[in-house]
């Protein structure tokens, strides 16, 4: 699933490790999310969006996944 995590993280001048600690996950999960290999759960998606003061839809692109169905 496409997302804006990398873009938002770079804008906030955060490392993957720092973002991971802030949202309660590991650096490896952030890496996987950024390259689109892993799709976050609703809980993690909410935490990430909340951390950047955005809505889930503003961070994650659900449209592409819905089209594939």
């Amino acid at each position: 699933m496409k997302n804006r995590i990398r873009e938002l993280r770079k804008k906030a001048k955060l490392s993957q490790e720092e973002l991971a600690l802030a949202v309660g996950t590991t650096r490896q999960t952030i890496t996987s999310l950024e390259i689109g290999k892993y799709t976050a759960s609703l809980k993690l998606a909410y935490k990430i969006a909340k951390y950047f003061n955005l809505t889930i839809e503003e961070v994650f692109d659900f449209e592409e996944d819905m089209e594939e169905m």
Partner: protein
Amino acid sequence: MNKYRIKIKSRMIFDMIGAVVFLPVAVYALIRYWNIEGVISGTPVKDFFGGVINGIRGAVVIAFVIYLIFAFVKNVLAIRNEEKLKKMYFEEYDERALAISEHSSRVTYNITIYIILVCCVITGLYNTTISITLLAVWIFILLTRIITLGYYNNKI
């Protein structure tokens, strides 16, 4: 995080008890199974396969004690450092790691169940005992799967 701290403390107690209980067993295994007496006195191991089995026996007990001590030290270090504890919690409950574990378990189960069944049929051609043992293992795995599926179907 307090709940996790309590969990870690109880794990530490179990690790400590386990290490204390199994340490004499490990020492015994080292002397008895790894033939330290024989090495010192120069008595060679007569039976090769018996030696291999003894080696495995000793290794399992010794590795278990080393694991318990390692886990205890790791938990002590984590409980003293809030950052480390937090990191350990995130690593343990990381949703991606859990997803990987679930996928891996599923694939392992599927491979195991077919391989055992094929081996059961093949060994049945020349050794009934091995074939029946494999069939029993296959039934046990299948029953465990059915029971756990039922359990989680009600739970989730």
